[in-house]
């Protein structure tokens, strides 16, 4: 059955292509958070992230009939998300700039820890990390978020963003280096 919880993403997507609606539910549950956060980190606007998020999944639904397994499903899904994001940036030049520092992301607070001191430290570290992440160039930030949210390898990041492996690797290295450097004060 394609809707088994341990079924691969590709099997679930093939099941949905063949008419299994439950398979889509499983897929959606697995990837909805990652895709949404990827869009939210990249566009840094919650309302816009909602719109783009819906478009990404609708594009996936419309393309289901032509789906064939040619890569990891997560790579396929994030490629759709990346393309939708690029379309938005190209169409809306006067819109949100990725380097606009004034735009704030409505990120909910991290769950409170049982220990108040540890919790305060963790919240500060998270806020510092998100601030450092926002300071990264778009491409480097995207590489890092794709790795964290989608679990993509360097090759998958390259495929999702349409660049070669070395470029993706370089972007990811720069992102990690900057984040480590910014978080050294918390060591």
């Amino acid at each position, binding site marked *: 059955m394609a809707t088994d919880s341990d079924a691969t993403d590709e099997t679930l997507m093939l099941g949905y292509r063949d008419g299994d609606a439950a398979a889509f539910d499983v897929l959606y549950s697995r990837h909805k958070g990652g895709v949404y956060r990827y869009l939210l980190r990249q566009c840094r606007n919650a309302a816009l992230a909602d719109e783009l998020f819906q478009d990404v999944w609708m594009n996936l*639904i419309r393309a289901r009939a032509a789906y064939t397994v040619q890569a990891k499903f997560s790579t396929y899904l994030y490629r759709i998300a990346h393309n939708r994001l690029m379309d938005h940036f190209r169409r809306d030049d006067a819109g949100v700039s990725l380097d606009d520092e004034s735009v704030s992301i409505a990120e909910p607070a991290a769950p409170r820890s049982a220990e108040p001191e540890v919790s305060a430290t963790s919240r500060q570290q998270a806020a510092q990390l998100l601030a450092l992440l926002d300071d990264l160039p778009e491409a480097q930030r995207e590489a890092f978020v794709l790795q964290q949210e989608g679990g993509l390898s360097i090759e998958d990041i390259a495929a999702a963003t349409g660049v070669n492996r070395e470029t993706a690797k370089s972007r990811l*290295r720069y992102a990690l280096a900057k984040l480590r450097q910014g978080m050294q004060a918390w060591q």
Partner: protein
Amino acid sequence: MKPGSDMEHDPQLAALYRAATTAEPPAHLDDAIRAAARREIAAGPRRAGVRRWALPVSLAALLVLSVSVVTLMREQGADRPESLIQPPTQNPAAAMQSEIAKKEIAGPPGSAAPEAVPGRRPAAPPPVVAPAETMAQPEAPVPVLSGRAAEAERGGAESRAKAMAAESSRGVDAAAVRREYAPQPQLRPAPAPMADAAGGAGVSAAQSAAPAAALSAVPARSALWQDLVKEPPEKWRLRIAELRRDGKNADADALAAEYRRRFPDQPLPEDQR
């Protein structure tokens, strides 16, 4: 951060990132997307199946159509009647020219028909439309020929017909061709001697010589009564009696016929009739 962390992987940063970002899409988006996914399935047949089969089906249809057309063309080519290869001429002027050419080939009336050549097709009728003057032109008078002259004329007519067909196929004016190759009027040959006619030079020669002899006999008969024109009937009757007595019954009959024409009121005696 730990000093030995991978250049492309940092577990501590990853854990810190996962703890920092817990944003989820709104619930109404979840419902809308799931509903859209179900609507897409319930919308209808799988278009992917159609797309998968579209190309093979198109190629198969094209192949079947091509084979059908080629087969049909071959069948039509095999069953095509000869009339389709050389369609009959519907033009009345061209048909008239064809008839004229056939008459010329056949020669004058009464002459022997030309020998039929097996497998030989008559010259195709010229497709050129003859002008009105050619259509209205009366046929040339058929000359009276002797046997040898008729054969020569037949050969000439046949060659003229071929030449006319060739000229017509080149688009030359049919009237000009007809004038050029029209049979030249020949002088009536002199009356053959009676011995020649009786000698059997040919059926046509005998037939043509008989009227000539009759014509030549007319002035000879009229000489019988040239000296009696101004004489009374008694002189005529005496001459008729002399001719009968000499055994010249033909001359006597001719003179008696002339007498009856001239003197219908004075019948001949019984012994002179």
